[in-house]
């Protein structure tokens, strides 16, 4: 999929990057492939440069519009790439915010300046994630790191006997594919491999700390069990009735 997405960045308001975030989140979740050309557009009110007492009838202000192509985002296998380097949604948000601020500074934002801003953020992220990945290697071993880098997820057997899959983003899935809702304190601000390490160790060694990992019985199981119990009660009631030779049998609780 190829598309062009425009982010509004009017001077008087915050950049509206929510639609972009929604698109990226959805494509990431379905592990879709896409190439998105990002453009920033904005407008601001300025006092007319040719203002004179004689031409005030034409109005005090002009609307100035600016538009610049920021760059290209690629999505592949659930990952986002900016200028060919892996990025995350938080980085994209920061980059869009920085570009919006630069759009109205001096002569305005250029494509080269947008790229410079991206490079700074991407380099910082790579350093932070590199350090976090080293911590995963030192604590969990090379095998886990290899699996993380090649598949983006690892399987782990928990001390509760269950098997889980943990993604590099720290998402947890049961062996049956059910997503288990897990929260990491301060998770949004943490490097993803730090989040992963915390989740991995907790799921493996102390799953009881995570309430959503408790096995959930299917509702159908309960319904079947109730039917069995009711059938047994009816049978017992019938036997009692026969033994009492036609007498009334009271069931201590409602049936049916």
């Amino acid at each position, binding site marked *: 999929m190829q598309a062009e997405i425009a982010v509004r960045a009017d001077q008087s308001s915050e950049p509206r990057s929510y639609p972009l975030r929604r698109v990226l989140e959805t494509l990431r979740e379905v592990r879709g492939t896409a190439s998105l050309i990002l453009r920033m557009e904005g407008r601001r009110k300025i006092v007319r440069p040719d203002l004179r007492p004689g031409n005030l009838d034409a109005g005090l202000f002009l609307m100035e519009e600016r538009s610049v192509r920021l760059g290209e985002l690629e999505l592949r296998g659930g990952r986002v790439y900016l200028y060919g380097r892996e990025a995350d949604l938080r980085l994209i948000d920061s980059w869009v915010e920085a570009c919006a601020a630069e759009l109205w500074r001096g002569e305005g934002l250029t494509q080269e300046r947008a790229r410079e801003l991206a490079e700074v953020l991407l380099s910082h992220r790579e350093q*932070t994630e590199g*350090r*976090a990945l*080293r*911590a995963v290697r030192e*604590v*969990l*071993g090379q095998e886990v790191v290899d699996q993380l880098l090649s598949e983006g997820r690892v399987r782990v057997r928990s001390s509760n006997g269950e098997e889980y899959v943990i993604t590099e983003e720290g998402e947890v899935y049961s062996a049956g594919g059910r997503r*288990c*809702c*897990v*929260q*990491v*304190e*301060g*998770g949004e*601000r*943490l*490097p993803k491999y*730090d*989040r992963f*390490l*915390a*989740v991995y*160790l*907790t*799921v*493996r*060694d*102390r799953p009881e*700390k*995570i*309430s*959503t*990992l408790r096995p959930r019985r299917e509702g159908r199981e309960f319904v079947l069990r109730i039917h069995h119990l009711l059938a047994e009660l009816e049978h017992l009631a019938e036997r009692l009735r026969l033994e009492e030779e036609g007498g009334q049998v009271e069931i201590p609780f409602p049936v049916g």
Partner: protein
Amino acid sequence: MRCILRKLGSRGDELQVTDERGLERELRRLEGSCFVALSVRGIARLVGDDPEQVMECVRLEALRGTQELEAILLPRVQGG
């Protein structure tokens, strides 16, 4: 026993070398605000967030003759 305290976080790894008493002081200061995993000879295990429980494990390791362990401070994880 040599205790290496590893603090993860967005600002980077922080490694601090201390002893059992130093480790206990730091855990009490944190007041259970993070999970602690103990790593001995390269094998890590999450203990929990209770400083008393963590120190119990550390004392056990000392009795086993362990010369060095690493205490990794992790963010708390819970069901969402």
